[in-house]
């Protein structure tokens, strides 16, 4: 049990760091609070290496903690929508066995940003937001793709370390 908590803790912490680093990137899409979603990398890894329940715990923890640290209520809303949707979608893709980690990540990235966008639409109520959708999608696809490649690499290495 202790091992599970520790492992989950490490994953969450790394996700938070990635979150923080993400904020340092000059990412402006016009809608404040929306992020590309690099922390998905960690969640994806968890989906592949750990039982779904634990992976979910990690996903939830990192969303809530990141939201807490950002002090920005709207960013939390976006994070929840994006993080949770992409988690379940990625889990489903993983279970279906149809895609490689790259594909799953791609899907996760896209869903992450689409969910954030829908939340923004509901919260901000302006049609003008549609102007940003294509860029958001591209960013999500790009982030998802990069994450996917990284995860493939990581999986091959981590498999050799007997932590899990």
């Amino acid at each position, binding site marked *: 049990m202790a091992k599970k908590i520790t492992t989950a803790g490490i994953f969450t912490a790394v996700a938070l760091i990635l979150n923080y680093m993400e904020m340092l990137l000059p990412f402006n899409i016009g809608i404040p609070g929306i992020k590309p979603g690099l922390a998905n990398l960690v969640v994806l890894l968890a989906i592949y290496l750990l039982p779904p329940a634990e992976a979910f715990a990690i996903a939830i923890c990192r969303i809530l903690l990141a939201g807490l640290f950002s002090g920005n209520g709207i960013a939390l809303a976006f994070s929840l929508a994006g993080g949770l949707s992409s988690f379940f979608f990625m889990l489903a893709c993983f279970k279906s066995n149809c*895609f490689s980690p790259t*594909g799953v990540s791609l899907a996760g990235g896209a869903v992450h940003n689409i969910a954030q966008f829908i939340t923004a639409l509901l919260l901000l109520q302006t049609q003008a937001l*549609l102007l940003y959708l294509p860029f958001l999608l591209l960013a999500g696809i790009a982030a998802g793709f990069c994450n996917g490649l990284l995860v493939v690499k990581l999986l091959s290495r981590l498999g050799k370390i007997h932590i899990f």
Partner: protein
Amino acid sequence: MKRNDFFLLLLLLLGTLAAFLLRPEPSTAKAEHIQVTVNGKMYGTWKLNTPQTITVSTPYGENVIRIQNGAAYVSKADCPSRDCMKLKPVTNSGDTIVCLPHKLVVEGKSKNGNGGIDTIAH
């Protein structure tokens, strides 16, 4: 597995293209009311949906603001060049009519922010 990834990528890129085509025209936020200030101090606010006439009489001079058809403009002024009477009526959030000699500013405001516009170059 790799092939499915490729299809997914293709699908997503097509989706992005569709999103591009669905982009709306840039819109502006219509002003709901005007805020009138004299020398930086609030003079009053009036809704744009009710036709009315407002006379602003200050030590600097007099301007008459007319609200009609959701727009506000200066219909009478005793400033030397009456520039304020020639300016575009205030219809959108952020639109401004200024009477310099009288230090009068009429600005369009709305609850929904300013239609995504931070300032107007003119």
